[in-house]
């Protein structure tokens, strides 16, 4: 339980750049370090986080539940969202400085691209686990085109992909 709390607190405190960044963090800690989830469950948890409304950090509920039931779910969700809560309030006092401070912007300018690299790395790992044959490759490609080219809504795309999987798989 303590591991769970501190792992998610840490993830909440370091995921610069939005919820997507959480994916490589969770992959490294929950799957590789602690073995709380299998690769398969991890992908499924992310998928469920995408089809529910709200931020995708909500996937942490699944992990918390698996580790320690309902209390684990509450703990994981609380721990990952707590840093966000305090950061946002602290930001109210330092808004002006944050906006203009060149050092802050230099740091963020460094972190920004790194975070994309990390998301890509997690994407590769997930792709290895879920794009396993011709139809999953074609499906992934079709979804990518739908989102990037036709600006389709991501949760709709995921639901459609799931429905096709139900028919084909």
């Amino acid at each position, binding site marked *: 339980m303590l591991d769970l709390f501190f792992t998610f607190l840490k993830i909440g405190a370091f995921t610069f750049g939005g919820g997507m960044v959480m994916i490589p963090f969770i992959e490294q*800690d929950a799957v590789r370090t602690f073995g709380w989830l299998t690769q398969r469950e991890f992908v499924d948890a992310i998928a469920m986080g995408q089809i529910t409304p709200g931020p995708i950090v909500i996937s942490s509920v699944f992990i918390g539940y698996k580790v320690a039931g309902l209390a684990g779910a509450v703990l994981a969700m609380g721990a990952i969202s707590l840093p966000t809560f305090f950061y946002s309030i602290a930001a*109210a006092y330092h808004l002006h400085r944050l906006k203009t401070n060149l050092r802050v912007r230099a740091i963020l300018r*460094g972190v920004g691209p*790194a975070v994309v690299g990390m998301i890509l790395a*997690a994407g590769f790992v997930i792709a290895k686990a879920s794009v396993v044959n011709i139809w999953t490759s074609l499906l992934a490609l079709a*979804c990518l085109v739908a989102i990037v080219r036709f600006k389709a809504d991501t949760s709709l795309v995921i639901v459609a992909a799931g429905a096709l999987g139900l028919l084909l798989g």
Partner: protein
Amino acid sequence: MDDPREGPTGEAPRVGLLHLAGVLLKVGATGFGGAMPMLALLHTEYLEKRRWVSQEEFDEAVMVGQIMPGPIAVDAITHMGYRLRGWSGALVSWFAFILPSFLLMLALTLVYRRYGGVPQFIGLFKGLGAGVVAVIAAAAWRMGRPHFKDVRTACLLLGALLGLLLLRINVVLLVILAGLAGLVLFRKPSDFPPAPPRGGSGQGKGDGR
């Protein structure tokens, strides 16, 4: 604007906590598709319908979301909640926004644990998995493209990718290293194109969720 709780106009009516909670429960339950669609919804509810915040305040909240760790929308609503009603406003916003998706995810988790092994579900999740790969690739594409305009940011991106894939560098260490690299690499004002990130008016191109 020394006291962050005072809006720049000062004419905005005091927002009821219950009212705030109601609006956020609704946004939390209907905000599908990641940060940008959610911000568009918030823009409608907070600004267009109710004038709780000005456009400038809304843009600032989005910027807070982008600078601070954590999901962009959660940062933004907590920040605006604080500016509207202090600590209680922040707490109510934060809680009401997270609650609907928490309950939905909990329900899905229970279903998954009960029926996850059923053959039909395996096909379903194979499809979902392929969809997730596409969503991540699309996010990386949108977020990553601007970074290829500068050799330094392009190298940081590729360095982080390879560091994580090949060397399995710890993710927290990677973020810290990238921040330090940023301090060393970007020293001139010209290193910072188009000022701090903006785009809160709901038409912003998605970057992260």
